[in-house]
């Protein structure tokens, strides 16, 4: 249904980062710039240019200097081998072959990345309902509904922090989901909103937290409530979900 179109020539790598993220970005750039073929790289020329980039240490991601150097040594090694009489066919595990394969794979990754970038841009032009929140403050909003996966992470994390145990213990106390549901609804009705982390903070057993957690999970699934958090391990905010609209 959706068609993918690609605008050629947009080099997201240079525009975005202003430097080469990794050694293979730089290598691919040099190969393209010199109109070479991945399968037939002029190793002398490429090594020379590559090293001059490193020497200027401009346009190279400083956090990955080690990776750049590692690749430089590979290039120098390949170059030194090329001075020797060359075998007619590339050996199975030759450094040339390995470099070539890595470059081919990385080239694909770059292409897919460009495509995804293009698709992302297209989608960002279509604004969704309530994309703009919090009184027009000029900031990034990344609110999302909590998945069972994330809830579980938070839940487990809390348990761990609370009692330092790596196993979940259910004490045989009598906490029912029915009661919890009523309790949560009551809080939401009086306060309009609930901070789930605060809510479970004072509970003394893992079971109570577990039951609260499952109650919230199910209530969210049934669209009674909406649970939102800004980032993993951040506060979970809970609102009532009323006839399809979030009531705040």
């Amino acid at each position, binding site marked *: 249904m959706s068609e993918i179109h690609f605008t050629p020539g947009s080099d997201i790598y240079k525009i975005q980062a202003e430097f080469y993220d990794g050694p293979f970005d730089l290598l691919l750039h040099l190969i393209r710039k010199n109109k070479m073929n991945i399968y037939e790289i002029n190793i002398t020329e490429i090594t020379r240019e590559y090293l001059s980039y490193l020497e200027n240490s401009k346009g190279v991601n400083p956090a990955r200097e080690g990776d750049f150097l590692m690749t430089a040594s590979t290039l120098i090694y390949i170059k030194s081998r090329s001075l020797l009489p060359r075998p007619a066919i590339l050996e199975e595990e030759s450094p040339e072959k390995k470099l070539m394969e890595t470059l081919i794979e990385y080239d694909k990754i770059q292409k897919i990345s460009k495509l995804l970038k293009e698709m992302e841009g297209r989608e960002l032009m279509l604004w969704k309902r*309530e994309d703009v929140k919090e009184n027009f403050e000029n900031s990034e909003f990344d609110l999302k509904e909590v998945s*069972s996966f994330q809830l579980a992470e938070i839940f487990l994390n809390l348990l761990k922090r609370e009692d330092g145990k790596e196993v979940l213990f259910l004490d045989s106390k*009598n906490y029912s989901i029915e009661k919890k549901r009523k309790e949560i609804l009551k809080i939401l009705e009086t306060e309009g909103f609930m901070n789930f982390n605060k809510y479970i903070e004072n509970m003394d057993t893992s079971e109570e937290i577990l039951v609260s957690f*499952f109650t919230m999970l199910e209530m969210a699934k049934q669209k009674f409530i909406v649970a939102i958090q800004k980032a993993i391990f951040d506060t979970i905010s809970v609102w009532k979900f009323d006839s*399809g609209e979030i009531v705040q």
Partner: protein
Amino acid sequence: MTEKKEPLFDDENEKIAFLESVLFVSKDPIEPERLIDYLGCRRIEDFEKLLRSFEKDLMDNNRGLFLKRSGGGLHLSTKPDMHEKLKDFFTIRRSSKLTIPSLETLSIVAYRQPVTLAEISDLRNVNSVGPVKNLLQKKLIKITGRKKVPGLPALYSTTHEFLLYFGLNDLSELPSLEELTEMFEDKEQPSLFD
């Protein structure tokens, strides 16, 4: 202060289209003043005329939205006569949901599996043969063995359907603590990007 290119609206229609999209994307009501300014309305009356025209469009039978003017400003909501149907539409799916005793039982099986009926009943402080039966019928749990104690009671575990119901692909999606530690609490990698 900053120079702002006045956007050009070709006509009233385009202004109404803009109004609709602004109100659609905004979570909060929008102050009329901001819109008046942005739409380049010279007089309040021009803006009022625009709003009335928009409201008239919304009154059509094939429209489901409604322009609300309240304290904070303007916002869109659904037409009141849609509310019953919306409630209906969004609740139909709930009919096949689990009862509370079943959910309690399920939570115990999920985290304690394999587990016996006696252990479940013990934790819930109530005989749980009903919910266990119910969950078996719904195929959310199944018998996966027998406990080597007198009477050889059945051991229950969650099923593939359980994973589907909770939108999980695998029980491993509820990650282990070790993994969480590794993934999220590890010393941050010195990366400039993420």
